[in-house]
């Protein structure tokens, strides 16, 4: 079958690879009908996530049709149209039972690397390096889905593919940031990043009752899209002092909840950008935490900061003093999508959550390398490139 493969830093190609097979009784094989780029893929492309091998199939946010199931799959059968969570959960270990699906203890067959790096392993993740289990990604014609009863969700009739697609990752990740960030009715929420996840976090905060939501980015088309489709306030950080702007909009308090949806390649402006850029290039720090620092400084005393953006290792100049002395709560996680996806599909079906506008560019698998180039460089206003292998 055809697949988009990582070949090295900033190098992708379309290759013929073997079809996936049922390897466990609880597996399903899904014919991928739509698979989208995600900002976290750019960290793989940039070489910031270790444990990639030339030839690995990438992609983790997808939708498709079940074509084969193992003998122990009971909730799905061939023909089901499903959206699959990008994170693989077993559904029965303690973290999964407690709703912390990205901490699943049975879905990463190679936990040694991440346990050594982080003191604990994550769940397996589709197409996201051998450190996360080495599962093949979704930018392919077919994909194997382990523990299919727990990770594949039937899409309700009447919900379009392009709406359901983002229930795989962007929408539940954003929802988790607002939910576990503790957004309550009446809150003021600031979101760093107006990509797919940031927009979904902003919308989630509104649906959870936030009175004001302010989204921050630098790209005019993304700011305009967020204002139009999410309906929140926006701030261009290249034309204003974000901290001062947020204080002015909140009576000097700062936002109650700050959600960081940028990750380890944050851009920023001024000397901070130069400092982190040089240190990262020299491998003296792994990740650029510019948006995290800003969120911690901006947050109101006693408020909450949630890190949704992907980080891999160590950061420099982390404002621990501000965190401690302002009494902040800091949380982060890979997404616990399984706890949110059914509710999100319901919201999408009722028209309360719009997602399809994120799919700014639709193309075939053969266009994978070009799609990632557009996505990375934000060419032509690209927010998400969606690959449709069978069209």
């Amino acid at each position, binding site marked *: 079958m055809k697949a988009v493969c990582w070949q090295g830093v900033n190098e992708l190609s379309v290759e013929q690879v073997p079809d996936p097979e049922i390897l*466990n009784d609880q597996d399903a094989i899904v014919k991928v009908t739509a698979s989208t780029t995600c900002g976290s893929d750019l960290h793989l492309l940039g070489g910031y996530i270790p444990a990639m091998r030339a030839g690995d199939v990438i992609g983790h946010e997808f939708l498709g049709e079940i074509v084969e199931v193992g003998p*122990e799959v009971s909730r799905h059968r061939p023909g089901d149209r499903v959206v699959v969570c990008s994170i693989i959960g077993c559904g029965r270990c303690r973290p999964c039972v407690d709703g912390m699906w990205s901490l699943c203890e049975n879905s990463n067959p190679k*936990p040694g690397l991440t346990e050594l790096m982080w003191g604990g392993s994550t769940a397996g993740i589709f197409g996201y390096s051998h450190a996360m289990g080495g599962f093949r990604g979704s930018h392919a014609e077919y994909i194997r889905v382990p523990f299919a009863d727990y990770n594949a969700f039937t899409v309700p009739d009447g919900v379009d593919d392009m709406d359901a697609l983002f229930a795989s990752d962007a929408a539940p990740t954003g929802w988790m940031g607002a939910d576990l960030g503790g957004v309550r009715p009446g809150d003021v929420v600031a979101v760093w990043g107006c990509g797919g996840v940031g927009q979904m976090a902003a919308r989630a905060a509104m649906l959870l009752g936030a009175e004001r939501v302010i989204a921050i980015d630098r790209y005019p088309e993304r700011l305009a899209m967020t204002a139009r489709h999410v309906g929140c306030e926006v701030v261009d950080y290249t034309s204003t002092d974000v901290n001062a702007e947020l204080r002015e909009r909140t009576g000097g308090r700062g936002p109650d909840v700050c959600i960081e949806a940028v990750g380890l390649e944050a851009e920023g402006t001024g000397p901070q950008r130069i400092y982190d850029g040089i240190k990262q290039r020299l491998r003296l720090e792994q990740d650029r935490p510019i948006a995290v620092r800003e969120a911690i400084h901006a947050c109101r005393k006693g408020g909450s900061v949630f890190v949704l953006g992907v980080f891999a290792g160590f950061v420099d100049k982390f404002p621990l003093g501000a965190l401690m002395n302002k009494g902040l709560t800091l949380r982060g996680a890979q997404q616990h999508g399984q706890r949110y996806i059914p509710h999100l599909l319901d919201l999408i079906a009722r028209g309360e959550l719009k997602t399809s506008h994120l799919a700014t560019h639709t193309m075939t698998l053969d266009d994978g390398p070009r799609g990632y180039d557009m996505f990375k460089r934000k060419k032509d206003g690209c927010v998400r490139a969606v690959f449709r292998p069978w069209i």
Partner: protein
Amino acid sequence: MKRAIIGALGVAAGGVAVARWLASRRVPAAFEDEATRWLGVTVNRSQDEIMPGGRVPEPLAELDAEVRVNRAPGGRGTELYARPREHVPTGATAVLSRIRGDDPRQAVRVALREAKCVAETGEVLRPDAPIGTTRPTLPGKVLDAALRRAPGEGRL
């Protein structure tokens, strides 16, 4: 070519000498603790489900290992512990054993993880079949070696 072979042999001989010297040094107390430490996983099942009739679960039962269980606090299931009966290398020797893949704790870690996965889900999840790399490189070979050891390494 001849110089390269002599150089490689020199490096190898030096490495062996350093390893032997490190192995001959007195073992610090912390390493002695390592040799007897129990490795454990918490299984989200009752003790009776994990060890019905006191039988040690597979694949732990196939190893020459001591096994014990505790009830986990707070209703979190059962703590399943194991450690090898045979001699466990310590210090620098342990590092070499782990790299070679013959440290007996690696097999115990794998067995503990698999016993937990079977008890909780009914089967051991298999990774996707590897796709042959399109570009064999030195970092890729190092990564492959690390990945071969990954199931038996980590924090347990």
